């Protein structure tokens, strides 16, 4: 199993969650975060904004769904056809075990 962590624009959050749900990945956790990326934030004249608000979406998936989920997130979080700086990043880590509290069962 894999844990997908996607940093996306907050305004794209609902579209991404909607598409994930349609594709059968309904469960997700969303956290509001601030951060900066490779462009070192946004520079406007002398001012630097390096705490840019983003939404962090956490989704637990099976390994064979990896490409599909990544595709869905990228497709829906891109700005325009070619994308723009600040569209976000996706990190994928291994997920060893999952427990559901109500039933105590393992697995997603």
């Amino acid at each position, binding site marked *: 199993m894999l844990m997908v962590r996607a940093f996306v624009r907050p305004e794209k959050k609902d579209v991404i969650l909607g598409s994930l*749900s349609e594709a059968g990945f309904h*469960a997700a956790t969303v956290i509001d975060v601030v951060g900066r990326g490779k462009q070192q934030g946004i520079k406007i004249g002398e001012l630097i904004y390096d705490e840019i608000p983003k939404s962090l979406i956490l989704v*637990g998936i099976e390994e064979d769904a990896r490409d599909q989920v990544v595709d869905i997130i990228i497709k829906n979080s891109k700005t325009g056809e070619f994308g723009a700086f600040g569209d976000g990043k996706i990190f994928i880590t291994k997920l060893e*075990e999952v427990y559901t*509290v*109500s039933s*105590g069962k393992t697995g997603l």
Partner: protein
Amino acid sequence: MKEVMAVIRMDKVNPTKKALLEVGIPGFSAISVMGRGKLVNDPSVITERKKTILALGRSTDDKVAEKMVVEFLDGTRLFPRRLFTVLVRDEEVARTVDAIIRVNRTENKVGDGKIFILPFDEAIRIRTGDTGNSAL
């Protein structure tokens, strides 16, 4: 070393803290998150809860209120939860999971949360520079 991420009910934060302490895991981080789980396809699971929550409101035949409550209960919309992150040694994973499950289970059948266990490579205590298990 393992990272245990548990998404739990907001009102179970204190019991969880206490239970973790009892099994010898004092350290944790917690943040407020919004989340949703699997869709509840069987309406009978949430019938009782729907009645209880609607009874808290002023009118019970309000369609808008009912729609909101149903969406909240069946997981169509995001609802608030607390995300606990606990870093533990390999041999402590089982009792951490047991403790969390024990105090977080309710009679509501759904919405009690999920526990994710992820591997991580290194932990470093900033004060001393200790690494590995002794830094946890």
